[in-house]
C-alpha cells in the first residue's frame, strides 16, 4: 500500500470519506484510525453500505402487513404464504461492474442475490432480472447485451435456479450507465428463517465457502462513485463468479440449516468480511474478534486491509452454537468447501482484528454505527408537464402501421432472444414461462404457486417521478393480478443518478413518495430493496429507474390466467376507462418522435377496484385469457394476446369521441383485457357496469389476422416476423 505514506485524512478522501466524515470518525473512535480501521470505516460509511443519502426517504415505505414476517433490514424480505411456508426475496443492482465486464458483472450480481436469499434459510426457486441498456444503435450496446445476458444465464443456469422473468429496456439515457438488477425468490419454512444478529459471548465465528483473494477490493466504494473518463484507468479488479462453488455452498448451507447448529449467518457481499462481521456484531449488540490469518486465502501475502475488504464471491460468515463446529465441518467437507473457525463473539462491543496475535484494528461498533452519516440532501421537484390529450397530436401514420412498428421496435419486440438463454424450466415447477404478464412458479409438490414480475417505466418517472413511482408499483400489482394472483409484497431496486444533484434527489424523493402511496393503497408493502446511486457519467445521470419486483400468490393453479387467446368466436372485453392519454407514451415516442407530456394519471382506488374485479373473474374461472394493458396501450395488448394464442381478432370500431390513435395507443392506467364465451362476456360487462367499472367489447377472436383497422388486415405472420425479428437483427444474427 503506497498510501501508507500519505496523511490519514488524505487517504480517507481517496477511500471516499469526506473531510467532515473523517472528522466524525476520529471523534467516534477517539483517535486517528489505522489503515485497516480506515478501510473498515470507509466501507461501512460508503453510500452502498450506509444508505446515507437515501435512508431518510426510504422510511416512507410501508413495510407492514399481517403476512410480513421480515421487512427491510435483513438480507432479504420474508412473507408468509400459507401452509407454514414463507417466500423470501430481494432485488439487487450490479450496474457498474456489468458495464466494465458485462459477463462477470452480471454473473456475480446473480450470485450475490442468490446468497442473500439462501442465507435466510430459503431454497431459491426463481430468478428475475431487470435490464436497462443504452440505445440499440449505440456502439457498445450489442456487446453489453450479449455479455450481460450470457452472464446472468451462465450463473443461474449452472446453479440450477430458473430465470423466469424480467424486463429489458433500451434507451439512450443508459448509454454509459447500464442497469443490471437481479432478483431471487426462495422458499423456506416460516418457522425456520435465519437472520444475521450475532449472539452468545464466546460462540465461534466460522468462515465457509470459497477462499479469499484480492478481488474487487473497494467494490462498495466503486458502487458509490460516478464514472468519468478516467474510470478506465482506476478500474479495480472485477470479481469473477464461480456458480459451481455457489451451488455447493447453497447445498451445504441448507444441509447445515436443517440442524440446530447455526445461531446467525450472513453472506459476504459488498465490503466482504467487513460488512458481514460488523453487521452481525452490531445487530446483536455484541463484539467480535477475528484472527485474520485463519481466513482461507487464495493468494499469499494478503494484509489485513485486503482481507477485510476483499469482495471474493461465494463466501459466508456464521456464528455457531458452541460445540457444533465438528458437525458443521463434516458437512462442508462433504461438499468440498473451505471451513474455518476464524474468531469468536465477545461482550466488548468492539471489532477486534488480529494478525499473528497482533491487533491491527480495534474499533467500537456502536459509535461507528451511531455516528454513521445520514444526509438530507437538497432537492428540487421535477417541474410538472402539461397533459397531452389525443386531440393535441396528429397521427403521422395509420394505426396499423404504427402497431407493426411498435411491435417490431426496440421497446416491445419479443425478448425471446434473452430468455431462451436462461434455463427457465429447471426445478420443473415453472407453470408460466417468460412471455406472459407474470411468471408463475409452483410451490413444489402443491397446487399453489407464486407469481413473479419486475416492472418500471422510466419515461414516466422522468416525466413525473411521483406518478412514475406509483405506476411502477401499480404495474407490478396489475401483472400479478392478470395471472390471477393475490399480490402480496414487493422488493425494489432504486437506480438513480448523482444524489448530490438536487434534480436527481428530487427524482428520488418523488419516486419514493409515489411508490409509498401505491404500496399503501394496494396493500402491497416493501419488504426488501436496494439503492444504486451515482449512475452518472460525465455529468449525465440516468433516467430515474425504481425497479419493482412483485410477488403474489395463486391459491389454486386451476384458476390461473394466461395471455393467449383461446377460442375463435370469443369476445375480447376491455375493463377500465380509455380517455386517450398520449403524453409520455410509447406511441408518442416511437411513432411521433416526441417525448413530452405528463404520464397517464393513476387513481389508486380505481386500480384496486379494477384489479380486484378482474382477479375475481379469474378465480371464478370465468375468463379464458387475461392481459393487463401497459406500454403501447390497447392495440398492442390485443396483438400480444393474438400472437400468444396464434389466433387473430376482428376489432370493433374505435369509438367516435376519440381520435383513433387515442383509443388504440393511449396508455391510460388500470386496464385489462379478458376473453370469455359470448354469454359470459355479456355477463361480465353487465356486472362491471353495475359496479361502476367501465367495460366494453373491443373485438372478437378468430382468423389469422387483425382486421377492422383502416387499411389491409395485419396477418399474424407479418406481425410475428416483426415482433420476433427485431432482437436477433440487433444482435447481428441475420447478417
Amino acid at each position: 500500500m503506497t498510501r501508507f505514506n500519505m496523511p490519514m485524512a488524505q487517504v480517507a478522501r481517496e477511500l471516499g470519506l469526506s473531510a467532515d466524515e473523517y472528522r466524525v470518525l476520529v471523534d467516534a473512535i477517539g483517535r486517528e484510525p489505522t489503515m485497516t480501521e480506515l478501510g473498515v470505516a470507509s466501507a461501512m460509511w460508503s453510500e452502498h453500505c450506509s444508505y446515507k443519502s437515501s435512508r431518510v426517504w426510504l422510511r416512507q415505505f410501508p413495510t407492514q402487513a399481517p403476512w410480513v414476517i421480515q421487512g427491510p433490514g435483513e438480507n432479504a424480505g420474508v412473507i408468509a404464504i400459507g401452509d407454514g411456508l414463507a417466500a423470501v426475496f430481494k432485488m439487487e443492482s450490479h450496474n457498474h461492474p456489468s458495464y466494465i465486464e458485462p459477463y462477470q458483472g452480471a454473473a456475480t450480481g446473480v450470485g450475490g442475490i442468490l446468497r442473500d436469499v439462501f442465507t435466510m434459510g430459503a431454497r431459491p426457486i426463481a430468478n428475475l432480472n431487470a435490464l436497462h441498456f443504452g440505445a440499440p444503435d449505440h456502439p457498445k450496446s450489442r456487446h453489453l447485451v450479449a455479455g450481460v445476458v450470457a452472464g446472468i444465464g451462465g450463473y443461474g443456469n449452472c446453479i440450477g435456479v430458473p430465470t423466469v422473468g424480467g424486463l429489458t429496456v433500451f434507451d439512450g439515457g443508459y448509454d454509459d450507465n447500464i442497469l443490471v438488477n437481479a432478483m431471487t425468490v426462495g422458499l423456506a419454512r416460516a418457522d425456520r428463517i435465519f437472520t444475521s444478529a450475532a449472539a452468545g459471548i464466546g460462540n465461534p465465528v466460522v468462515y465457509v465457502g470459497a477462499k479469499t483473494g484480492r478481488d474487487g477490493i473497494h467494490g462498495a466504494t466503486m458502487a458509490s462513485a460516478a464514472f468519468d473518463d478516467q474510470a478506465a484507468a482506476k478500474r479495480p479488479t472485477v470479481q469473477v463468479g464461480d456458480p459451481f462453488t455457489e451451488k455447493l455452498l447453497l447445498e451445504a448451507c441448507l444441509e447445515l440449516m436443517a440442524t440446530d447448529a447455526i445461531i446467525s449467518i450472513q453472506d459476504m457481499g459488498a465490503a466482504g468480511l467487513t460488512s458481514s462481521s460488523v453487521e452481525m456484531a452490531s445487530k446483536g449488540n455484541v463484539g467480535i474478534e477475528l484472527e485474520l490469518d485463519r481466513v482461507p486465502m487464495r493468494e499469499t501475502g494478503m494484509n489485513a486491509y485486503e482481507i477485510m475488504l476483499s469482495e471474493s464471491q461465494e463466501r459466508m460468515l456464521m456464528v455457531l452454537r458452541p460445540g457444533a463446529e465438528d458437525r458443521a465441518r463434516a458437512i462442508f467437507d462433504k461438499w468440498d468447501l473451505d471451513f474455518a473457525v476464524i474468531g469468536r463473539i465477545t461482550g466488548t462491543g468492539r471489532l477486534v482484528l488480529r494478525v499473528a496475535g497482533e491487533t491491527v484494528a480495534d474499533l467500537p461498533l456502536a459509535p461507528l454505527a451511531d455516528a454513521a452519516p445520514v444526509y438530507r440532501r437538497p432537492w428540487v421537484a421535477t417541474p410538472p408537464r402539461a397533459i397531452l390529450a389525443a386531440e393535441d397530436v396528429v397521427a403521422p401514420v395509420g394505426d396499423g402501421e404504427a402497431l407493426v412498428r411498435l411491435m417490431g421496435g426496440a421497446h416491445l419486440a419479443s425478448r425471446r432472444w434473452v430468455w431462451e438463454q436462461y434455463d427457465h424450466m429447471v426445478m420443473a415447477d415453472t407453470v408460466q414461462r417468460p412471455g406472459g404478464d407474470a411468471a408463475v412458479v409452483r410451490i413444489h409438490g402443491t397446487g399453489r404457486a407464486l407469481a413473479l414480475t419486475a416492472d418500471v417505466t422510466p419515461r414516466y418517472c422522468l416525466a413525473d417521478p411521483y406518478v412514475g413511482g406509483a405506476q411502477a408499483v401499480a404495474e407490478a400489482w396489475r401483472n400479478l393480478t392478470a395471472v390471477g394472483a393475490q399480490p402480496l409484497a414487493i422488493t425494489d431496486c432504486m437506480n438513480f443518478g448523482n444524489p448530490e444533484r438536487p434534480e436527481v434527489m428530487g427524482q428520488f424523493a418523488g419516486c419514493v413518495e409515489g411508490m409509498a402511496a401505491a404500496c399503501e393503497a394496494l396493500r402491497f408493502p416493501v419488504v426488501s430493496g436496494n439503492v444504486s446511486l451515482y449512475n452518472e457519467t460525465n455529468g449525465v445521470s440516468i433516467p430515474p429507474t425504481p425497479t419493482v419486483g412483485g410477488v403474489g400468490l395463486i391459491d389454486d393453479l386451476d384458476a390461473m390466467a394466461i395471455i393467449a387467446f383461446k377460442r375463435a368466436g370469443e369476445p375480447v372485453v376491455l375493463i377500465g376507462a380509455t380517455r386517450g392519454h398520449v403524453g409520455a407514451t410509447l406511441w408518442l415516442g416511437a411513432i411521433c418522435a416526441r417525448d413530452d407530456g405528463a404520464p397517464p394519471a393513476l387513481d389508486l382506488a380505481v386500480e384496486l377496484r379494477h384489479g380486484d374485479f378482474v382477479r375475481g373473474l379469474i378465480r371464478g374461472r370465468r375468463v379464458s385469457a387475461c392481459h393487463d394493458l401497459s406500454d403501447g396501450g390497447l392495440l398492442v395488448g390485443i396483438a400480444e394476446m393474438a400472437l400468444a394464442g396464434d389466433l387473430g381478432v376482428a376489432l370493433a370500431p374505435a369509438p367516435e369521441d376519440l381520435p383513433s390513435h387515442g383509443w388504440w395507443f393511449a396508455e391510460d392506467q388500470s386496464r385489462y383485457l379478458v376473453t370469455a364465451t359470448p354469454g359470459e362476456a355479456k355477463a361480465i360487462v353487465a356486472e362491471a357496469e353495475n359496479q361502476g367499472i367501465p367495460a366494453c367489447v373491443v373485438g372478437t377472436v378468430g382468423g389469422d389476422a387483425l382486421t377492422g383497422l383502416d387499411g389491409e388486415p395485419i396477418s399474424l405472420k407479418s406481425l410475428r416476423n416483426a415482433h420476433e425479428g427485431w432482437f436477433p437483427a440487433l444482435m447481428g444474427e441475420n447478417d
Partner: protein
Amino acid sequence: MKARVHITLKDGVLDPQGKAIGDSLRRIGYTSVSGVRQGKLIELDIDEKDRRRAAAEVERMCKDLLANPVIESYAIELDGVG
C-alpha cells in the same frame, strides 16, 4: 502469416476453471499438480507478410476484442517464434 494469442487471467483474478481442473487432476491421482490456470488460445491466419505490421495488427485486435483488459492479459506469438 499465422499468429497465436494466449489469453490468461491476470494474477489475482479468480480462475474457477483452473481450480476445478486442478482439484480434478489431484482427485484422479495426479497429486504432484500444485496449481492450474486455464486460458484461451486463439490462432489467427492473417493476410500480412510483414512481421512488424502483423504483430501491431494482432496487438490491436487483442486490445479491441480478443482480451478484456480488466481481467485478462495476453501474449502474442507469430509463426511459432516469439
